[in-house]
């Protein structure tokens, strides 16, 4: 038994010693650029805040309005990625801040946003963030695989956020002053405040 333990420890030590370095972007592996497209927006604070804000806004408005985003948001990411490739990289900091402020204020006010406006805002967010995600690509990156990864994660993230928000808020049954509705509105106020701070810091001399 003692010999087995020793062997186990030696084997563990050898495995640890022979382990390769961890790579967050597995660019060297097959389909690595697909995973890069998946992970890239999830490690960027702008994407996390804006995607969450858009999903929460759509979720609060209910499934009937929000379901359009399931197709529109990934499509917008794709369009943004293409536009970014054609027109080159540009700073999106001010546009990000403006979208955060607008979406945050709508959430805080619990505004009943028309479907067309919701779709337009979500598409704008997707285009801006798609272009920003495509700006950092290295020449050797497979654009098609990266775009596929980005689109898939966009679809998954927006759908999941909308669904979770709709379930949390229980749109049809809760009143405007229930704690769930207030929590969502407070989150909106925080997002708007973050957007405002970010805009001022971007414009600061």
């Amino acid at each position: 038994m003692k010999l087995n333990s020793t062997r186990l420890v030696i084997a563990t030590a050898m495995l640890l010693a022979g382990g390769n370095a961890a790579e967050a972007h597995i660019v060297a592996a097959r389909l690595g650029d697909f995973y890069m497209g998946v992970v890239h927006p999830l490690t960027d604070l702008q994407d996390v805040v804006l995607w969450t804000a858009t999903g929460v806004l759509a979720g609060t408005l209910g499934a009937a309005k929000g379901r359009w985003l399931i197709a529109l948001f990934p499509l917008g990411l794709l369009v943004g990625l293409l536009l970014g490739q054609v027109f080159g990289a540009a700073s999106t900091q001010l546009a990000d801040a403006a979208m955060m402020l607008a979406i945050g204020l709508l959430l805080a006010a619990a505004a009943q946003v028309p479907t067309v406006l919701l779709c337009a805002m979500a598409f704008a967010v997707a285009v801006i963030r798609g272009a920003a995600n495509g700006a950092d690509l290295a020449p050797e990156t497979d654009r098609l695989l990266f775009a596929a990864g980005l689109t898939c994660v966009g679809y998954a993230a927006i759908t999941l956020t909308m669904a979770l928000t709709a379930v949390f808020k229980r749109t049809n049954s809760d009143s405007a002053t229930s704690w769930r509705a207030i929590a969502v509105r407070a989150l909106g106020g925080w997002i708007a405040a973050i957007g405002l701070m970010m805009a001022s810091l971007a414009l600061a001399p």
Partner: protein
Amino acid sequence: MSLRLPLPLTTAIVSFALTQPALAHEQAGVAGGLVSGLLHPVTGIDHLIAMVAVGIWGAQLGAPAIWILPITFPLVMAIGGVLGVLHVPLPMPEVMIAVSAVILGVAVAARLRLPFAAAALVVAVFAIFHGHAHGAELPRAANALAYGVGFVTATGLLHLCGIAIGTLTRWPAGERLIQGLGAGIAAIGCYFLAQGVGAFA
């Protein structure tokens, strides 16, 4: 089964286990901005007590103040932050921040029941001064978004902390405790006010 590892082997295993993590994005300033934003509202005692006092007073006032304040307060404070970042001057900011602690502390201690509009106006004016101070003092190297996320989160959590403390008003003993806390906040505010007007110089 006894598992006794020789020291060199233990050292080797620990060394491999403690290898550094891989980072997907090396966004310079993100972590620094987040930490700066989170710490800024909690490192100044005068700011901290005023934020908590707003939450307690909101809880004492009840609806609609208790639910409107968490929604609007960080936003109004961010407006003050914008003025600070853009170096728009406000009159006597340090004195006004100390005055805010005194007045909010007295309001809590006296269970002051103002009409909602008047209470909101008082809190909004003070929020702008607090936000201005944070905006004017922020580190230039900080990542803008990360700083904003940290700053707003810390402010909101302090405010929620005050509301949580304010729920003690449901019990008579809790009410007295909170009134004592309000008096303490007002006293600390008086100290900062005296310091602000140069009484200790």
